[in-house]
């Protein structure tokens, strides 16, 4: 899904977020307004510069008058909206979501190449996940080391689809996609070929840099060595959408 092109006549709206009176452009999403105003909203699938996916549900917020929670990354602001970003209920849900991410696949931070530079690990700490209350699934997932420069470890993947989106929307290669459902769901390269045999991959490494966890990494990194750099993304995204 391409990012929406900004239409010419945009109005401003006023809204309240956590008791702060704010104004925003009517085409903005709640997460964008929060980021501009330094209101912390946890997110894992959202990344400035990529289209909105709305899959991780960490950015859930409460909107006054609505019984249902909304995802801040995929909800536009509206006049008079009253938003709460950090109620006890939201904290409880977020904590549970992160715990389930840890329980679903296999995370061993102490020996992970991304230890100390991982968004899931940091998210766990900031949501107060000091242990996982649900039992670990303990199901092994494959590792694809066939690419000469990069490696994919499905054990660490949280299915945020950032790799899919950056490869399609920014690099224009669309090497990645998603296959299967439920616990069988996984990211694939080309039509589920080993990454090293992919004919579309340009080896640009953008997918590796945007991956929030130790799922996509450079070959040859050992514990704690995989540091990612996402500075390129907003710059390239702006250029692409200006075309």
């Amino acid at each position, binding site marked *: 899904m391409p990012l929406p092109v900004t239409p010419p006549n945009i109005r401003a709206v006023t809204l309240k977020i956590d008791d702060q009176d704010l104004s925003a452009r009517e085409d903005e999403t709640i997460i964008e307004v929060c980021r501009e105003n330094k209101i912390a909203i946890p997110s894992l699938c959202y990344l400035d510069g990529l289209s909105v996916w709305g899959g991780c549900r960490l950015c859930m917020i409460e909107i006054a008058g609505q019984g249902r929670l909304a995802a801040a990354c995929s909800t536009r602001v509206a006049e008079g909206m009253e938003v709460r970003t950090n109620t006890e209920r939201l904290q409880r849900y977020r904590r549970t979501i992160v715990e389930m991410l*840890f329980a679903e696949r*296999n*995370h*061993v*931070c*102490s*020996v*992970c190449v991304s*230890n*100390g530079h991982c968004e899931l*690990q*940091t998210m*766990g*700490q*900031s*949501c*107060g*996940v*000091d*242990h*996982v*209350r649900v*039992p*670990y699934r*303990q199901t*092994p997932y494959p590792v694809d080391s066939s690419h000469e420069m990069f490696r994919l470890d499905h054990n660490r993947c949280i299915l945020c689809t950032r790799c899919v989106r950056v490869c399609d929307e920014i690099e224009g290669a669309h090497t990645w996609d998603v296959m299967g459902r439920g616990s069988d769901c996984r990211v694939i390269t080309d039509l589920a070929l080993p990454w090293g045999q992919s004919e579309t991959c340009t080896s640009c490494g953008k997918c590796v840099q945007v991956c929030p966890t130790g799922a996509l990494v450079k070959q040859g990194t050992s514990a704690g060595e995989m540091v990612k750099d996402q500075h390129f993304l907003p710059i390239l995204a702006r250029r692409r959408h200006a075309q």
Partner: protein
Amino acid sequence: MSTPNKITVATTWLDGCSGCHMSFLDMDQRLVDLAQQIDIVYSPLVDTKELPDQVDVGILEGSISNDDDLEKAKTFRKHCKLLISLGDCAVTGNVPAIRNHFKLADVMDRAYRENVTLQPQIPTRCVPPLLETVKPIHGEVKVDVFVPGCPPHADAIWYVLSELIEGRTPDPSKVTRFGA
């Protein structure tokens, strides 16, 4: 000897590397302050051979991987008012739990037959049998405080113990995380 108003503490290691206990010792000169307020009544760090009947705080390092670990965890739960899981092995299963992806028989074969040149055999005498699945402590007994980290930094252990001594509930996520 324990003096009446000191907090009694017991510690032991299950399937861990003793690194969390080493990190405990890394509190260095703060251990001297700590000794004014707590009494270590049972631990690999002291001589006592028996866990006293009533202990205020129990600290467990390591995951539950064999019958003996399970027994120790249950005994600690029974005799300690407050139980702490210290370190990632205790909190998540961590490195010991990586073997959960293989059948126990295959793990044993790998360790005692495939990689052994002299008299390959599975040890059975004087060693506790391994459990099929490695679990974090709270997978078997109720745990009150979780201190993640591999190992948790001495500062984190100091923070948790100081809070408990002051009668407050520590929030370990303020000072440590998985893999810290």
